[in-house]
């Protein structure tokens, strides 16, 4: 997957765990939590979905990389570069 494909995967996961949110105006440079209702259990859902979908294991010390869309995509790119895009 490339950066844009990973972004779409993250958007799909966010839409699943926060179905009441409108994500169309999400600012990729700003923290998710500043733009939507997202608590620690929701955050763990993001980690869990990535684990289930792509067998990606994200160690706890790396959670800080999942703060914004930009930082998340940057972090995941090397981990998912050999994975086929679902789209």
């Amino acid at each position, binding site marked *: 997957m490339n950066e844009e494909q990973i972004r779409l995967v993250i958007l799909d996961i966010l839409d699943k*765990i926060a*179905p009441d949110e409108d994500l169309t105006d999400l600012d990729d440079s700003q923290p998710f939590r500043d733009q939507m*209702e997202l608590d620690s*259990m929701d955050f*763990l859902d993001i980690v*869990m979905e990535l*684990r289930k979908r792509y067998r990606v*294991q994200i160690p706890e010390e790396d959670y800080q990389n999942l703060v914004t869309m930009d930082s998340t995509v940057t972090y995941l790119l090397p981990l998912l570069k050999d994975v086929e895009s679902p789209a």
Partner: protein
Amino acid sequence: MPLPDESRIVITGIGLTAPNGNSLTEYRENLLAGKSGVVPFETRYMPPTVAGVCDFEVTRHQKRKEARRGTRAGQVAVYCANEAVVDSQLDWENTAKNRVGVYLGITEHGNVETENEIYEITQFDYDTKVWSHHHNPRTVANNPAGEVTINMKITGPHLTVGAACAAGNAGFIQGVQMLRLNEVDVAICGGVSESIHTFGIFASFQSQGALAKHDDPTQACRPFDVNRNGIVVAEGGGICTLERLSDAKARGARIYGEIVGYGMNSDATDFVLPSAERQAECLELALGRANLTASDIDIVSSHATATEMGDIQEAKALHTVFGDRESLAINNTKSFIGHAMGAAGALELLGNLPAFEDRVAHATINLTDPDPNIALKQLVANEPRELPKVDYILNNSFGMLGINSVLIVKRYEA
């Protein structure tokens, strides 16, 4: 000596979801029309079966995210509790939320969520790293009641009452007691069930030889009928707002009825087989607490689940207490909706309450060939029955491990 109004507990609001209705009005109409809510149902690992399935609007009182995070029992409870409060016309915004208690009867809780997680890890070679972090908050035994408090911002006490299939009555009884102890001013109480979403309950009844089957699902649940062949599992919820009569009068509340008596006891004999003797004692306990005799009761809402032993033992208990008095009407709501487990006692009582106004006992449907071993002359078979008066309704609810509960509600006269 009559109780003071501060100790008299009345029903002021009703919220429910049953397989054949999502409000008291719709549910009552279908009970009087003989309309079943039992449908074909498929669940994991089991051959096709039948069940009582609810279709209430989950998002009426709950955000989609809240519904996703919680449980089906939580969805049922949140829907019914909100509907009850709306129906009560309480000034909810100005109600002291730390003086509201939530007491919900459950038959079981956590099986659905545990089965789901086990299924999930089987898809990942039993890797427990995909076991959900939501599992514990979903499966703690207080879950459905706790979800109600979070949704409705209630800061008073909440708990579930684990009472097998006697749980609906047990939830009401807990509410009555807490109001009388002045622990709360409003009790949101009753029973809920998500049981159709665990394959285990179907599989266990099947192994016990107690799971109903019929080509026509609407005819599958046949209490007191010689051709019955077991239980139809159902989901649902029945929740009331209870208040002290003094408070209800002060705000001019609509009063559905007064809970004047209750009894709970234990068979102390068997895991599954009921005891007619103990059930009869429980009936007498409730009548005594209400200062009534058996001749005062107009409608008995029976518990019978359409198992041979259960139906016969309850019939014996009822015959012991009520004899052959023909002015009594005995009906059975499971014949319409199946066995709603933790919600059964609550839904069965609530479906009968409108009889205080219309003086009609709804029927026991599917009773085409009454079991000759059941000597109840008062069964309302297949068609509703008009009664000259309805002043007292008695509701039976019994469960596994020999838990018995009886509730008596009186028509309220201002």
